[in-house]
């Protein structure tokens, strides 16, 4: 037997379903007539900058809805290979893009570099060791934290140090007190003041404004290159890629401490 409160609950449920149905239908029909959407798969380190780019792009393209999906580049690559509906892929390294070119998902000449991420030195806000220059890294009393050689930035760091000379590199590496498993751990150790200095991507420093950032001379620095490629013929996707490569798009990326491509 259905009691009154129970009946009321059922009616309410029915009402919710009905209203949800009619509400949900409206935007769908609207988008079919007016709005085009483009889905962008982008590396996690691009989260903040791409959100800003999306906002700016949609201001000038009111009929385009940019949908962003962030994850690590190798995860995104695996998703795309398994048929995820992406219109654009922005990777944090060439490796994942090359894999998609190899499997024929990205056309050979479609991928273009759209930014560089440079290495910088960070110290805790207090900078107890009083680090001011790149050369200070080789000072004997310094506690240095790097990313482990096994992760990409760890490799770039050692390459950069080697560029500055074997003897210098050896003295700097003798200061290493820990090889962290990822770059965020390096940031955390410096943020907590456990070591005197660390080496991270410039883009990692945006989220932690209290850190002291010391630039590495350009002649030694190693740049990680991020490539972007449209995956479909979708016109808004192509327009978004062009926007990122435009001076306006590059200026936004620079604001988030990436290095623009020439």
């Amino acid at each position, binding site marked *: 037997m259905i009691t009154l409160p129970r009946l009321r609950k059922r009616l309410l449920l029915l009402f919710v379903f009905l209203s949800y149905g009619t509400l949900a239908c409206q935007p769908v029909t609207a988008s079919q007539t007016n709005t085009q959407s483009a889905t962008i798969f982008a590396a996690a380190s691009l989260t903040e900058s791409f959100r800003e780019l999306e906002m700016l792009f949609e201001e000038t393209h009111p009929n385009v809805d940019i949908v962003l999906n962030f994850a690590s580049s190798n995860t995104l690559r695996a998703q795309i290979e398994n048929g995820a509906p992406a219109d654009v892929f922005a990777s944090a390294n060439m490796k994942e893009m090359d894999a998609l070119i190899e499997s024929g998902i990205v056309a050979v000449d479609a991928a273009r570099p759209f930014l560089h991420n440079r290495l910088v030195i960070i110290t805790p806000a207090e900078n107890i060791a009083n680090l001011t220059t790149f050369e200070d890294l080789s000072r004997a009393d310094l506690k240095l934290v790097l990313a*482990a*050689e*096994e992760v990409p930035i760890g490799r770039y760091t050692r390459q950069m140090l080697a560029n500055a000379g074997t003897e210098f590199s050896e003295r700097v590496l003798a200061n290493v*007190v820990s090889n*962290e498993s990822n770059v965020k751990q390096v940031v955390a150790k410096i943020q907590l*003041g456990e070591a005197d200095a660390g080496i991270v991507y410039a883009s990692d420093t945006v989220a932690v404004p209290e850190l002291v950032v010391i630039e590495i001379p350009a002649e030694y620095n190693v740049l990680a290159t991020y490539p972007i490629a449209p995956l479909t013929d979708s016109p808004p996707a192509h327009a978004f890629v062009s926007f990122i490569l435009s001076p306006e798009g590059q200026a936004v990326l620079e604001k988030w401490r990436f290095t623009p491509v020439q």
Partner: protein
Amino acid sequence: MSTLRIYFKHLTSDTHTNWIFVLPGLLLLALFGIPLLALILQATQTSFIEHALAREAVAALKLSLVTSLLSVGIALILGTPLAYALARWQFAGKKVVEMLVDLPVVLPPAVAGLALLIAFGRQGLVGQFFVHIGIQLPFTSAAVVIAQTFVAAPLYIRAARIGFADIDSQLEEAAYVEGANQWQLFSAVMFPMAGRALTSGAILTWTRALGEFGATILFAGNLEGVTQTMPLAIYLGFERNLGVAIALSVVLVGFSAALLTLARVIEKE
């Protein structure tokens, strides 16, 4: 009550329904066993001896043995009196102390590592005072021992507490009648009586200390020969040299299995 007994008897004698117990158990055993089997098979296919004797593997093995034994030593020296007090005495705040001792066992190691860092780190709650007397813990082998003690010593305290509590209280009374003081009671009666529980607890603590990963990598960092214990070398060895990671894993599995067996034997004797 009697129907229940008949029901159980029926199950154990009737071979047709035994599968109800065997099958689910086998699935779970397969889950435990197959990965270990895969690890061992993989190790035999690669040059196991060569990988196990690689420089980074030997360094990690040595460091793991030294730090884990030190952690067990600290657990024994500082944990035995604590376990004794918890088992035999009633005091205010005992419940809080018991909770504090049990908590590290259930905490995620990452929480343990982070907490250790902000307590004993260079700018930590206590660590900032250590710096004045020239002591810096993070990134040292001492930090590895502290991390291991933090997560593993509670296992020893728990085992020892149960061991002391199980001793017949008449023995204690008899000792007092004979005029024994607290120390004599402990060293001549309680310690030998609880010996088996203490030993198996120490072995369990040793295996846990050997396997410690999360708190160590956060608090002590990762540097070969200084803070890179076996679990860290295995984790970071993935990309560089899978062979070394597998060889170290097999050594760790074998050693832990041997220690667990030893603990069992001691308990049963």
